[in-house]
């Protein structure tokens, strides 16, 4: 089992008659960065939501850290940081408060860790401002910071890294990996289907089982659709 952080076998899920995910299997190695690509409507978000217990699959198995997801959900989620689709925060709370409360429910962490996370994504100056006053890019950064505080070992994020703005701190999967590894080991399946110029991302895909296994339901992919 060693070496595999995420192992997905024969995962399927339908919405009514629409088979959104059809028998998908893949695995993710420890310490690797992955992109999860596919045309719009291919089922990427659906897979990621199933990996996080947000929706139940019709059938299939998910193992994270070698543990069965459906029987050990809480144990696993303590060690996972995630952003699904657009980052959403409590707009009337400050950036710091948002991270403080969210990390509290992930098992808790020291305030220094939160401050560190905020400084990594370049939001230290605005940590005491309400998130409602943030730009979209700033919320994306906070979304990334939000996956850090407790000792995360896997980070699953969808769209959070999509086209990061040319702000003071340029974002890239390599930077992400470099910043957040250290004593922890990460595995980062990203889902930036609208990522443009994602050369680094493509390099990051080690073994590329993604597209082969993902039955693509949307042949005429929309312009925004990811290509690999």
């Amino acid at each position: 089992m060693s070496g595999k952080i995420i192992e997905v076998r024969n995962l399927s899920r339908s919405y009514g008659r629409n088979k959104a995910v059809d028998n998908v299997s893949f695995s993710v190695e420890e310490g690797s960065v992955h992109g999860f690509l596919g045309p719009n409507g291919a089922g990427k978000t659906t897979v990621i939501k199933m990996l996080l217990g947000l929706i139940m699959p019709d059938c299939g198995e998910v193992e994270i850290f070698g543990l069965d997801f459906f029987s050990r959900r809480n144990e696993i989620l303590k060690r996972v940081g995630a952003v699904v689709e657009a980052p959403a925060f409590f707009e009337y709370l400050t950036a710091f408060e948002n991270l403080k409360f969210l990390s509290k429910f992930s098992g808790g962490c020291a305030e220094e860790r939160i401050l560190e996370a905020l400084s990594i994504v370049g939001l230290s100056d605005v940590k005491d401002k309400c998130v409602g006053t943030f730009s979209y890019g700033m919320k994306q950064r906070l979304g990334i910071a939000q996956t850090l505080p407790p000792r995360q070992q896997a980070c699953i994020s969808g769209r959070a890294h999509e086209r990061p703005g040319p702000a003071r701190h340029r974002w890239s999967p390599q930077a992400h990996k470099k910043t957040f590894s250290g004593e922890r080991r990460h595995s980062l399946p990203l889902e930036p289907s609208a990522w443009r110029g994602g050369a680094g991302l493509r390099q990051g895909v080690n073994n590329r089982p993604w597209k082969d296994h993902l039955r693509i339901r949307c042949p005429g992919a929309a312009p925004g659709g990811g290509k690999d």
Partner: protein
Amino acid sequence: MNLLEKMRETFALTDFEARKIFRQKKCLAGLAVNLLLTLLVLVGFYLRKTGAIKGHRQEFEGRLITEFINGTSFCITVLLPAIYMIMPMVLAMMAASVLAGEQGNGTLRMMSVRPISRWNVVISKLLAVTLYSLFLLSCLFATSMALGSLFFGYGGDIIVFGPAFIGKGAGIFIMDSDTAMERAVLAYFFCAYSLLSLSAMFIMSSVIFRNATTAAIVPLGIYYTSYILDALPLMESIQRFLPTRYLMLWKYTMAQEIMWDRMLSDGIFLAIYTLLYVIIAGFVFNGSDL
């Protein structure tokens, strides 16, 4: 051990949910509406008491009623529109906002990728809305008692219009000062219980409809319809099936002798309804896509 952990989680979540409610400006909206109501009733009572409204003061009944205007009667009068109309509306909006609203803006998903139980999410949101309703009721009691005492004097005998509380057939009687004060406190106390049940219904609606507007409007529509049908003549045959039937058990505290047996049986039915709402909400939420 496991139960203790679960309870600790419920407590932490409720604390967070309550903080969120009190940090939002919309929390003040409920307070403002209650204050407006209090001020309007105050003006009404004041004009009546000072005889600014001609005509009424001439009638025997009018003069009699004016004799019983005081802090306690003011406090109880304010409660009527608040509990029947304003509080259900404010709580429906709040419940829809904390659950369906958060589902819509994605923050509920952000919370749900954490190792917390979905049952606890539903329960903590209900408890937080209940804390908010307790806060509103306390403010209503405090402001109406303070303003009423200031303008009309603290305490005093009150006249109780039985039909307005207990229904047809109840008489009109006079309650002495101490009893009236005691009954006012009891009435507010049992209102909190009624509001807990209403909030549970609103939370259930939020889980089912998932859209904040629908989640608020559907149960409010049912509530107001039941309320109107309950008051209409010729509707006796369906009144016993209305979901509001057991809701307002606080009103029995205003009888000449408190109707404890009636309150107990209504209270048990209400508890069963409330529990059902929570169980349905929990099950639906547990199985829903986020």
